[in-house]
C-alpha cells in the first residue's frame, strides 16, 4: 500500500495483539461457559453474522440495499432439506445445490434488478423474495405451506445433528472466518474500491472506467452463494424450514439491520451488529417473553431506535470516532 496508508509500526503491532486476543476470545469463550443456552446464542450470533456479512457485500460495500436476500437463504435451506426428503441425503449435502440454484437465480434476476436505482431496487428485491415464497407455498412438491423437515433422528455425524450447540458455533464460525477473509482481501483490492465507488456515485464511478453492472453482479453472486450456504447451515441445525421461516421478509430485514447496526460496508460491522442484536433478542425474550405483554419487543425495539438515533452510521461510527479521538490525543 502507499506510504500514506501504511500504519506506523507500534500501531500495527498493537492491532495485531488486539486481533489475536479477539480471535482467542472468540474461540475460547464457549468452552468456558457451560450454559448450553448461552452457547446456542453464540452459534446463532455466528449464523446471523454470516448472513449479514454476506448481505454486506452487496448492501454494504456496493450500497445496493437488497431486502430480498432471504431468497438465497431459502434456496440453501430448502435445497438441504429437500435433498433429505427426496433422496435421504444428509442435509448439508444439499448445500452445493442450494448455492448453484442461488447463483443461477442471482444471474437471472441480478441483471434486470441491478439496473434499478435506490428504493426501486429494494422494492424489486422484496417482490422477488415474496414471489419465491408464494410459489413455494403453492407447490406441494416443495413442501408447500407445511414446510420440509430434516432427519428426525441423526443417522451419522454428517447429519450435523448435535445435542451440544458447540459444534454449530465452531462450524458457523469457520465459515464466517472464510467469508470475512474474502471480504477483507476484496476490500483492499480493486473490487473493494470499485464497489465503494459504485455506492458513492455510480455515474461518476462508471466515468472512471468502473464496469458498475458487472461488479454489482459479481458482488451479488458471491453474496448469494454465502447467503445460501448460511441457509443450508441453518436448515441442518434446525431440521425444519417452512415458507415463513425460510423465505419470510422478516429474515431479509434482520440481515439488513444486523449489518446496519454494526456498520454496513465495514468488515466487522455485521458481526458486531449480530453480537448485539441476537443476544438482545434472546435475552429480552427469556426475561420478558413469558409475561405475554409484548415488553420483549418494546425493549428490543427501543434499543434499536436508540442506537440509530445516536449512531446512525452504525456502531462502527462510534469506533471511528473513538479512534479519531485517540489519534488526536496521541498525536
Amino acid at each position: 500500500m502507499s506510504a500514506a496508508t501504511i500504519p506506523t509500526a507500534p500501531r500495527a503491532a498493537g492491532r495485531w495483539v488486539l486481533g489475536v486476543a479477539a480471535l482467542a476470545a472468540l474461540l475460547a469463550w464457549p468452552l468456558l461457559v457451560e450454559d448450553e443456552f448461552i452457547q446456542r446464542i453464540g452459534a446463532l450470533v455466528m449464523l446471523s453474522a454470516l448472513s449479514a456479512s454476506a448481505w454486506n457485500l452487496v448492501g454494504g460495500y456496493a450500497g445496493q440495499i437488497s431486502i430480498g436476500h432471504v431468497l438465497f437463504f431459502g434456496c440453501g435451506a430448502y435445497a438441504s432439506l429437500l435433498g433429505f426428503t427426496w433422496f435421504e441425503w444428509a442435509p448439508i449435502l444439499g448445500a452445493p445445490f442450494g448455492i448453484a440454484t442461488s447463483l443461477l437465480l442471482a444471474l437471472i434476476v441480478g441483471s434486470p434488478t441491478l439496473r434499478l436505482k435506490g428504493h426501486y431496487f429494494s422494492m424489486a428485491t422484496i417482490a422477488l423474495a415474496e414471489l419465491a415464497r408464494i410459489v413455494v407455498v403453492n407447490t406441494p412438491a416443495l413442501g408447500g405451506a407445511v414446510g420440509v423437515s430434516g432427519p428426525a433422528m441423526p443417522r451419522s455425524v454428517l447429519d450435523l445433528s448435535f445435542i451440544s450447540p458447540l459444534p454449530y458455533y465452531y462450524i458457523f464460525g469457520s465459515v464466517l472466518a472464510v467469508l470475512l477473509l474474502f471480504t477483507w482481501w476484496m476490500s483492499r483490492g480493486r473490487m473493494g474500491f470499485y464497489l465503494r465507488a459504485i455506492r458513492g456515485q455510480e455515474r461518476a464511478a462508471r466515468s472512471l472506467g468502473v464496469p458498475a453492472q458487472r461488479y454489482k453482479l459479481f458482488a451479488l453472486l458471491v453474496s448469494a452463494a454465502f447467503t445460501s450456504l448460511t441457509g443450508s447451515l441453518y436448515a441442518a441445525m434446525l431440521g425444519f424450514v417452512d415458507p415463513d421461516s425460510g423465505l419470510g421478509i422478516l429474515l431479509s430485514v434482520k440481515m439488513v439491520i444486523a449489518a446496519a447496526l454494526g456498520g454496513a460496508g465495514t468488515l466487522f460491522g455485521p458481526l458486531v451488529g449480530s453480537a448485539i442484536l441476537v443476544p438482545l433478542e434472546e435475552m429480552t425474550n427469556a426475561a420478558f417473553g413469558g409475561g405475554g405483554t409484548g415488553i420483549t419487543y418494546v425493549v428490543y425495539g427501543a434499543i434499536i431506535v436508540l442506537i440509530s438515533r445516536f449512531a446512525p452510521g452504525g456502531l462502527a461510527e462510534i469506533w471511528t470516532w473513538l479512534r479519531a479521538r485517540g489519534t488526536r490525543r496521541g498525536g
Partner: protein
Amino acid sequence: MADDAPLLEARDIVVAFGSFRAVDGASLAIRKGEIIGLIGPNGAGKSTFFNCLAGERQPASGSIMLRGRDVTRASPEDHALLGLARSWQVPAVFDDMSVHENVMVGAFLRHPHAAEAAAAADQVIDFTGLRPVARARSGSLGTPARKRLEIARALATEPEILLLDEALAGLTPTEVRAAIDLVRQIHARGITLVIVEHVMEVILSLAHRAVVFNQGKVIAQGAPRDVVQDPGVIEAYLGRSLSRKPPA
C-alpha cells in the same frame, strides 16, 4: 490511427427530449493536443452534447468516433478505457472515501494491483496539489478542493482527452487562476482538453478553439478572440457581456 485524424469526432448529433431537440445536428472534430472551449447560453444544448461526448448519454442519431473507434453506443466505462475522462458539473466525489482512495479508484483502471494504483494515485495527488488533504474524508472537503479532486481522479485514469464540465464555476478569482494553472499543466502533459465553461476569462485564456452552441447547433467555431467578435455569436449569446473588454 493516422496522426492527423481527429482524436474525438462527433457527427450530426441529435438528442431529443420528446419533441424538443436539445441537440440538433451538431458536429465537432477534436484533434490531439487541442484545448476546446464549449460555450453557449443556458439551454443551448452544450451540456447535453458534452454528455454525448462523454458516453453518458446516447444520441438519437449521429455518430461519435473516439481514437478511430465508433463509441456512439458505448458505455461510459468503455470511454474511460479508451482514454476519455471527465469531471462533473456538480462534483461527484465519493464522500465516504478519503481523497487518496478517490484517486485510487481512477488509478485502478490502468493499475489493477492495489500497491501500483496507490503509487499512481500518490503521483497524481502531488501533481494536483492535494497532498495536504490526501488522508481527509472527501465528503468533508470544500467546493474548490472537491473540484480539484474530480480532476485528479479523472487524471488518474491516464486519459488522452479530458472533458471538464464547468470545473471552475463557483470559484473565487484566486482559485480560478490556480485552476487555470492546473489546466495548463495538464495540457503540458499532452492531454487534450474539452472545457464547458461560463467564465469567459477561462475560455479566452485557455482555449485554442471556441465552439459556440445555440439552439442545439454549432453556430460558430474558431479562435476564441475571433469567435467572440462574430456578429452572429454576439447576437445569439454574448450580447451585453461582450461590451466588457475581455482581459488580456
